[in-house]
C-alpha cells in the first residue's frame, strides 16, 4: 500500500515537473516562432499572428492575453511594430516574466541596424510612421542571423541546462542560412537594378539585400490604404517608366494593385503576391519561405 501511494506521488511529481519543464514561448510574429523552433525544438511555441494578418493591426484578444499569461518568453519584433497591441497584452497578462526589461521579453529590433528611419516631425497626418525605422527586417537573412545569435544567448540564459543543445541547434541553423545566402544572391543577381512598385515597406529589407529598386508605394502614406487619387498618380508614373513588377503582401487588399495592373499594357507588368512571413511555424519554415521569395521573384520579374 505504502509503495503504491509512493509510486502515485512519484508519478505526480514527475508529471508536474514535466509540465513545468515545457518552456513556453509566445512569438508575436510567426517568423520568430519558426526561429525558436529551429534553435530550441523542445520549446512549446505559440505564434500570436499569421502571415494572413497585418502585424501592425492586431486585436489584443482575450485568447492572446491567456497565452501571454503562461509564457516563459515572448519574442517580438519591437521598433513599435506591435505598439498597438502588445503593451495591452503585457499589462493584462499579469505575467512578470514578459514585461519590458525582463529577460523573458525579447525584442529582435534591438539586435539589428534598421533602415528607413522617419526623419521628419511626426504629425497626425504623417501616417503610421516608425521613427525607429522599418521593422520588417526578417526578410533579410543576414539580419535574421544576427537575431538568431542574440536569441540563442537569451534562450541559454533562460534554459542554462540546455545550453549545449541550443548552441548546436544555432550552429546548424546558422550554417544552413549562411550557405544559402550566396546561392540566393547568385540566383537573384539578374534582379539587381530592377524597379518594382510595392505596397508598404513590408519587403524593404529584401529589396535592399537583392539590389532591387522600389520606385513607388501603393500607400499614399505609411499604413494608409491606397486612395483613388494616389493610384491615378501611380498609373501616370507607370506610363512614363513602367516598373518590372507590382509586389504586394498576401495580407494586403488585392484590388488596388489589380486595378493598377489592368491599366498597364497587357502582360507587361505582373502582379506578384508574396507571403510577408512564414506560412507555418516550423524549424525549416524560414529557409523554405526565403527560398520561395527568391524563386518567385526570379520567375516573375522579367
Amino acid at each position, binding site marked *: 500500500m505504502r509503495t503504491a501511494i509512493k509510486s502515485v506521488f512519484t508519478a505526480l511529481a514527475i508529471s508536474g515537473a514535466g509540465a513545468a519543464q515545457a518552456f513556453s514561448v509566445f512569438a508575436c510574429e510567426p517568423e520568430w516562432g519558426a526561429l525558436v523552433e529551429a534553435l530550441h525544438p523542445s520549446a512549446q511555441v505559440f505564434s500570436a499572428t499569421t502571415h494572413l494578418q497585418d502585424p501592425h493591426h492586431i486585436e489584443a484578444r*482575450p485568447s492572446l492575453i491567456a497565452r501571454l499569461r503562461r509564457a516563459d518568453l515572448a519574442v517580438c519584433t519591437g521598433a513599435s511594430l506591435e505598439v498597438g497591441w502588445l503593451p495591452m497584452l503585457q499589462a493584462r497578462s499579469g505575467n512578470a516574466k514578459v514585461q*519590458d526589461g525582463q529577460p523573458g521579453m525579447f525584442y529582435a529590433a534591438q539586435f539589428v541596424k534598421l533602415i528607413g528611419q522617419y526623419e521628419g516631425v511626426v504629425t497626425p497626418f504623417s501616417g503610421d510612421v516608425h521613427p525607429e525605422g522599418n521593422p520588417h527586417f526578417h526578410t533579410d537573412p543576414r539580419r535574421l542571423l544576427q537575431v538568431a545569435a542574440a536569441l540563442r544567448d537569451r534562450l541559454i540564459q533562460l534554459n542554462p541546462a540546455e545550453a549545449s543543445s541550443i548552441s548546436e541547434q544555432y550552429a546548424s541553423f546558422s550554417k544552413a542560412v549562411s550557405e544559402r545566402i550566396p546561392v540566393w544572391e547568385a540566383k537573384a543577381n539578374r534582379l539587381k537594378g530592377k524597379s518594382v512598385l510595392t505596397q508598404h515597406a513590408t519587403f524593404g529589407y529584401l529589396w535592399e539585400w537583392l539590389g532591387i529598386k522600389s520606385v513607388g508605394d501603393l500607400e499614399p502614406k505609411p499604413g494608409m490604404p491606397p486612395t483613388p487619387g494616389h493610384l491615378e498618380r501611380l498609373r501616370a508614373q507607370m506610363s512614363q517608366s513602367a516598373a518590372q513588377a507590382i509586389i504586394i503582401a498576401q495580407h494586403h*487588399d488585392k484590388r488596388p494593385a489589380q486595378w493598377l495592373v489592368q491599366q498597364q499594357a497587357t502582360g507587361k507588368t505582373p502582379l506578384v503576391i508574396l507571403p510577408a512571413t512564414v506560412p507555418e511555424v516550423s524549424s525549416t519554415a524560414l529557409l523554405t519561405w526565403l527560398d520561395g521569395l527568391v524563386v518567385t521573384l526570379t520567375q516573375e520579374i522579367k
Partner: protein
Amino acid sequence: MHKGMVYLAPLVAMALPAVAGAHESDKWEIGVVLDAAHTSKKLELGARGKDLELGHSDLVIRGPLGSAFTAEYSLAAHTDEGKLEHHTENLWIQTRTLPAGLQAKLGRFSSQIGYLNEQHPHADDFAERPLLYRGFLGGHWYDDGLRLNWTAPTPFYLRFGVEAFSGKQLIKHPETKKSPGAQTFSMKTGGDFDASNSWQFGLSYLNNRRQAEAHHHDEEEEEHDHAHGAEFSGKHMWMTDLVYKWAPNGDSKNQQVRLIWEHARVGGIHPESGSLRHSGTSLAAVYRFHPSWEVGARTDWLKVNKPEFHEDDDDYEFASGRLRENALMIAYKPNHMQTYRLQFVRQKGSGANEEGELVFGAPVRNSVQFQVVIGFGAHGAHSY
C-alpha cells in the same frame, strides 16, 4: 488651465517621441487626443452640448517607474457652453512584477466594471456613450482607489478583480458618507472560436455605499454637474457584457464586425423605494467594410425610477421613466490618429411624476453629430 496650453500640448507631444526614439515600448511617452463635435441638438443625458464643443480630450503621460511599476497621468478637458473645463482623470501606478498573475493598481483610474468603462472615450464607436453609462456612471466612472486583479493560468482568458474607491466621482452629493464609498467585484473571460471569431464575457458588481440625495422637488435646480457623477444610482449595480468580433483570418485591418451587448441593473435606489430598480441595455453593431471606413448602429434602453422628495407632504415619490435611443454612424478613419464621424440619433422618452413633469424632459426627435478625433504623439494600445 490656460487655453493656450491646449494648443501647445500637441506640439510638445509631437516633439517628444522623436527625442525618445528608443527601441522598446519601455520608455516614457506623451500623447494628446483632441475630440471636437458639432451637435445639432443636445441629447437627453448627452455629454455634448449644442453646436461646436470640445469633447473628452486629454493629455496622457505614461511610462515605467523602475522595472516594477507603470505610471500614468492624464489631464482631461472639454468645453461646456464654450467654457473650458478640465480635471485630472488618471494618476496611478500599477505593478508589473507581482508573482502568480497578480496585479495591483493605486491612485485615480477608471473602474473596470462593464465593457466600455475602462476604455478611453475617444476610442468609442459612437459619439456618445450608451445610455446606461450616461445614466448610471456619469459617462465613464473614474475615481480614487485601489485595485487587485488575478489572471488565471488557464487556456482561455479568465480574470478576477476587486476595487475599492472613494466613490466621490460617482455620487457627488451623498446623504451618507462611508469609506470606502464604492467597491466592485468583476470577472472577465474570453477566447477564440477559431482564427476569425473571438469573444469576451464580463460580469461585474458595484456596491455603492454613498446614497445620493433625492431630487428636492420644491427647490430650484441646484448647481449643475456636467459630464460626471451618476444621474441615477442605487446601492447595488450588476453589469453583464458580451463582445463578439469577426475578422477574416483575424486580419481586422480590411474588414471586421464587432457586436457589443451590455446590460446593467440597479437596485436599492433609495431606503423608501422597496424593490424598485433602474435598468439599462445597449446593443451595438459595427462593420468595417474598408480599411478606412466603418458603419455602425446602436440601440439603447433605459428604465428608471427617479426618487423625488416633496416637502409639502414630507414624502418620497418615485417617478417611473423610460428612454429609448437609436443611433446610426459612419466613420472615416484614414489612419489610427484620425477619426471623422457622422452620427444620427433619435430618442423617445416616456413617464412623468404625479405633477405631470416628465422624467426625461427633452428627448430629441433627431440630432446630427459630426465628430473629429485627432491624436498627436504617442498613442496607447487599445484593449479588445
